């Protein structure tokens, strides 16, 4: 609750309050602006990357003619063209639609995804009054305690990860209300599918993180990032490999993209947003790309060390006795860039997945979620808890935890995944035995 008190104190209009309010606004801008920008860039990235993967030229049509030259900026102008098109298109509302739900749905699809970014740290503390000095971690911490440092996180909540799940869970309302309010059978099916899928995968999504959270011992995203730190052996993807893979799969399912895009499935049911047009549809679209950013940011924070860069300490790069001293501002900037770089890299990965795989079927998706991923994530939680108990009761160094986790992962692979793999191969061999009659 101290956070809430701070916020209320800010509204008490005393001197400290003004500063706090201004700081909050700056934080909001620092965090939300890149998110919005990134979302727009992702729409371009999706087109561009898809065209590379498919041997096409990609977006080239939108252009500005300056002095007889058509400037297309690699297709980046399509962002503007899209925006203009959305705004100027006719906004059609089906006459029998439930007006309230129809209008509410796009807002409910977009707003929760934006809100979750308030707890995600894009960097550590920035001691602004000592920006040109080389500061150690302890010094930065001290400045943070005295309030001389600026926190690169909109809001520091002790229940941070829970807030993320609470709000991302609200996203389901957007899709299901759109389906319910549109007065269209296809949209209704889409909405129902969305509700079922997102509720199911929310469970897996939560459980996959529990393993990691047990290790970190905190729910606060900044603390999670700091626990992982500059030591790559402590990063979530190393200490929780199974959790990381399952989390990514479940998160893609949450963001409703291929291979999990059954609520949309444009070739079979067209989707829950079927009756939407113009900017309302555009808001769904924005929500979808925002989720792309959100999945990347979540994964980066929990499993890829957040804003931390390997070997980059608060006072510069250190490897053994070598030390490359860097001023504080450079460290902070590198860390922020690293965070967004990780997010973009994960976006790249998600887009690559989207343009490679076919779509799953509804029942297969449910089976994968409840029978496939849920038990594995539960087992992951259990194994993590046992390992953690062993490590703490024997006072072993948590820096060596990665050895244990890799052993466990190898074991799981050999016992569970590998037999499945051979089974699949046998299936294929059986199918390849298609007999063909030879030439006469």
């Amino acid at each position, binding site marked *: 609750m101290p956070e809430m008190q701070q916020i209320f104190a800010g509204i008490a209009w005393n001197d400290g309050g003004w500063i706090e309010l201004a700081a909050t606004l700056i934080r909001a801008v620092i965090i939300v602006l890149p998110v919005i920008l990134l979302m727009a860039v992702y729409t371009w990235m999706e087109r561009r990357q898809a065209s590379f*993967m498919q041997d096409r030229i990609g977006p080239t049509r939108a252009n500005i003619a300056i002095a007889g030259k058509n400037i297309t900026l690699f297709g980046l102008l399509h962002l503007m063209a899209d925006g203009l098109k959305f705004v100027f298109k006719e906004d059609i509302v089906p006459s029998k639609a439930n007006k309230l739900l129809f209008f509410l749905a796009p807002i409910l699809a977009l707003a929760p995804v934006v809100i979750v970014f308030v707890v995600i740290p894009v960097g550590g503390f920035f001691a602004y009054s000592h920006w040109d000095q080389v500061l150690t971690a302890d010094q930065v911490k001290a400045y943070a305690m005295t309030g001389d440092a600026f926190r690169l996180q909109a809001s520091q909540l002790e229940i941070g990860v829970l807030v993320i799940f609470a709000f991302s869970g609200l996203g389901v309302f957007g899709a299901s209300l759109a389906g319910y309010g549109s007065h269209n059978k296809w949209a209704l099916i889409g909405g129902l599918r969305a509700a079922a899928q997102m509720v199911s995968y929310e469970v897996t999504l939560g459980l996959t993180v529990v393993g990691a959270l047990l290790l970190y011992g905190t729910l606060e995203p900044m603390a999670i990032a700091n626990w992982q730190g500059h030591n790559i052996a402590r990063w979530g993807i190393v200490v929780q490999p199974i959790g990381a893979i399952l989390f990514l799969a479940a998160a893609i399912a949450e963001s409703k993209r291929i291979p999990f895009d059954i609520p949309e499935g444009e070739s079979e049911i*067209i989707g829950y947003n079927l009756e939407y047009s113009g900017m309302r549809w555009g808001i769904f679209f924005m929500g979808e790309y925002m989720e792309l950013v959100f999945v990347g940011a979540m994964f980066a924070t929990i499993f890829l060390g957040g804003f931390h860069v390997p070997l980059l300490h608060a006072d510069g790069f250190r490897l053994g006795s070598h030390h490359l001293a860097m001023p504080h501002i450079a460290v902070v900037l590198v860390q922020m860039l690293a965070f967004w770089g990780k997010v973009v890299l994960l976006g790249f990965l998600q887009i690559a997945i989207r343009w490679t795989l076919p*779509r799953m*079927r509804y029942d*297969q998706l449910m089976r994968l979620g409840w029978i496939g991923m849920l038990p594995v994530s539960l087992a992951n939680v259990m194994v993590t808890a046992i390992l953690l108990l062993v490590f703490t009761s024997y006072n072993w160094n948590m820096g060596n935890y990665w050895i244990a986790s890799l052993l466990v992962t190898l074991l799981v692979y050999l016992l569970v995944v590998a037999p499945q793999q051979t089974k699949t191969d046998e*299936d294929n061999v059986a199918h390849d035995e*298609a007999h*063909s009659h030879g030439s006469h």
Partner: protein
Amino acid sequence: MTPNSEQLAIQERVALPTETMTIMMGPVHPAMHGTVRVVVTVDGERIVHADVQVGYLHRGFEKECEGVTWGQVFPYTDRLNYVSPILNNVGYAMAVEKLLGVEVPERAEYIRVISGELSRVGDHLTCIAAIAMEMGAFSIFLYCVRARDEVYDRLEELTGARVTHAYCRVGGVKDDTPDGWLEKVRAGFGEITGVIDDIDGLLTKNRIFLDRTQGVGVVSTADAISSGFTGPVGRASGIDYDVRKDHPYGVYDRIDFDVPVMDAGDTFCRYYVRMEEVRQSLRIIDQAIDQIEPGPVKAVGAHRVVLPSKNETYNTIEGMIRHFKLTVDGIQVPEGEAYSYIEGGNGELGFYCVADGSGVPVKVRCRPPCFIVTGQLGNMLVGHTLADVVPIFGSLNMIGGECDR
């Protein structure tokens, strides 16, 4: 085949009382091409009844043919299966040649085989592309289109058109191949096999794709035979029948190729049979290019059937009169009737022609392979989920032009 709708309904009702919903799938639906409607009754996601309604692309092909000369029918046949028009051309030409008793020169037969197999490659690639795209694998669709463009480029060089070629003539083909065209065809194999291998890698062992296709839309061998299935769909259900092999026409008896047959009869088999047939078609083209010899491409001495050369038309009075009579009155086909059939892109493509001795057909009836296959779609769908409609339908390669005629 699949549990029938009543049993299914009873099972479901016992478990949980539910209400069914009837949905009009198509003709305005992205997967229905605007040419077919499936009225599906679903219980949740499960289909309890499916009513397939065709006819949205009915253009009266058979009636139209009764108003034009025999030679003018060719452009109409292009628009039957517009994915592999040359095969339709060949099928129709063979029926008329059977009535006339005209001998087609060897070179023309080889050109028909080469261009026809190219068309078949295009047809199968389109179908594979559709199956993949309707499951959301859009990249694979575009890979197929890239390979199909190779086919279209070659056919454009040969015929002057990319889609509606109207290349065959009664008694031969329109023109000889352009210089170096045959070598160009062979040089394009790499592109096509490259794409086929890519798709093999991306789909054939893809867990999601296998789950979506294996055991889905199964047609047993017995059902397939009693329904009259032919072509890739029939061969996927275990019917070892290929017109090119079992009733060789043209020069297929001189060419060595295999007919892929699979037993399971599901969507995966229909996909895989087509993949294999593309490879076999390339093998056929390869051999045909080796065997082809220079020579005439129109029936020699059949003055009342084939048009005279431009030189003859403009410089001799006989040539001009022949050209005039053949163009205005049409080929005078002796009274009689004939059925001729070839292996089309989707199966046995038959043409039944009735002639009364005039230049205009009395009746041209087409046996469209995919009409017969589409007739069983409703049965294939029952018991599956709504999401399965699209891949099953895609794997049948229903072409509106051919189905509705």
